């Protein structure tokens, strides 16, 4: 057993001279294999956004704190990841925050004013892509069966969003659809900038179409039966999500045959 919670928390980087720490202005909380690295790089490319070079895109600050107690020092330590020059904003994007049941509450304590970003992708495509990443590799006792279940559960978005909304006011959460970001990145990026409180103009010369963190190696090939199973079991969950998010365009996601 660790002596205290702080043994479970990652260490913040040294801030550049003249930068001051503070709570993150934005925190991306979901979801894995949905283009979050790409989108985070576009947010970071804004001239008013800074992050110490040793602060990763994914801080994973709350991963091991499921007992759920953060001291004032632990909160300060989180803020130390987000040093920035005067007038700049800072943040991170850890796709698992939305999934882990204990995290939204902790995030609310550590960054009550943060703007939260959620990027959602067709859960069938997410599954296809996510299974190639070893996102479930570290589970003790992980088998192909356990990995399939864990990957499947990550695509049940309605439950995750409900928990997020329990911890944060809804207007503090922006839900983006990956497929729309692909079709019109500039418009969705302006929306994102504006939501975070930045000048919405897309910086000149920024390549918004770039894809980052493409799956290495071949994608999982789903059989027709597997794809149909996924589409069918996700359908009622997607309907619940659509009832929560009137903007969600379900026609962009696979439907059961």
């Amino acid at each position, binding site marked *: 057993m660790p002596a205290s919670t702080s043994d479970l928390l990652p260490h913040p980087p040294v801030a550049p001279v003249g930068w001051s720490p503070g709570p993150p202005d934005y925190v991306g909380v979901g979801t894995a294999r949905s283009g979050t690295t790409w989108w985070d790089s576009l947010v970071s490319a804004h001239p008013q956004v800074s992050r110490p070079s040793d602060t990763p895109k994914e801080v994973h600050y709350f991963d091991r704190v499921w007992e*759920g107690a953060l001291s004032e020092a632990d909160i300060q330590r989180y803020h130390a990841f987000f040093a920035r020059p005067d007038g700049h904003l800072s943040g991170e994007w850890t796709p698992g925050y939305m*999934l*882990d*049941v204990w995290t939204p509450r902790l995030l609310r304590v550590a960054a009550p004013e943060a703007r939260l970003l959620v990027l959602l992708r067709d859960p069938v495509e997410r599954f296809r892509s996510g299974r190639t990443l070893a996102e479930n590799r570290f589970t*003790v*006792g992980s*088998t192909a*069966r356990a990995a399939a279940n*864990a990957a499947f559960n990550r695509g049940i978005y309605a439950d995750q969003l409900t928990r997020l909304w329990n911890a944060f006011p809804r207007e503090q959460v922006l839900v983006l659809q990956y497929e729309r970001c692909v079709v019109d990145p500039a418009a969705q990026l302006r929306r994102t900038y504006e939501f975070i409180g930045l000048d919405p103009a897309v910086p000149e010369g920024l390549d918004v179409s770039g894809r980052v963190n493409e799956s290495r190696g071949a994608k999982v090939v789903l059989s027709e039966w597997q794809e149909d*199973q996924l589409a069918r079991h996700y359908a009622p969950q997607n309907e619940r999500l659509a009832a929560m998010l009137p903007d969600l365009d379900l026609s962009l996601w696979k439907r059961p045959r």
Partner: protein
Amino acid sequence: MTLKARARRLAVRGSRAWYRFRGPRQPGPPEPPAVPEGWRIGPPHYVGVGAQKAGTSWWNRLIQAHPDVVNAGGQPKELHFFDRSWEAPFGDEDVQRYWRYFPAPDGAIAGEWTPGYLIDFWTPELIARAAPEARILVLLRDPIDRFRSGLTHQLATTRAPLGHRDIQGAFQRSLYAPQLRRVLAAFPPERVWVGQYEACRADAARELARTYEFLGLAAHQLEAAALQGEVNPTTREKFEPSAALQASLLEGYAGDMAQLAELMPTLDLSLWPSAREAGLA
């Protein structure tokens, strides 16, 4: 740190590394039993599908105590027949192979109960394919009690410290609504029995009579002593969630239990402390 503590830590690390290297025991069905003379093989009459740590071993034992329920060759309660069926296509020969586990003479029935079938999203439909007439048994338990018991069980069996994916995984297992939805998509409601562990504990004789009736079995009284008993009682270190984690769990389960009540109106949520605390009963 004392030498003893250091040795213990080393042992835990070693066993964890070994566990990761070797992986867990791959559960799978044993060889099908020999068919006694005059018995016939066929699809199982009943398939229990869930939930882990909800009293299913106890309940399966009580079902098998009925004189018209047979278990040729002492098959294990959990066949895990579909565990690997997500990766491998499931064909008619698999259906035939499944039937070989359930020989029975005229007038008797056979079945199995694998709690993991409920969480495996691909499995209810495969059961419907392999045993379209089967009666499906689901035993549920207060989601936080089940969460706690599942992690206690895991601590005891893997002997490794819990990681955050274990916590999240155990949380997910008590989100019953999506799981039950898949069962009800594969089977008509009159062939699905959803029982509650707490009701079984409160009045085993009454719940067992209902179970027998659901299975189409004649009424049969068991001795009080035979009704008793926890089959897999927990004896080791218990996992006890902190107050903060409990609060998060409760929030996470509140919405699920509300959906569950809609899916299965006969469920008595007032038996679950979590449901009462969430104001659902």
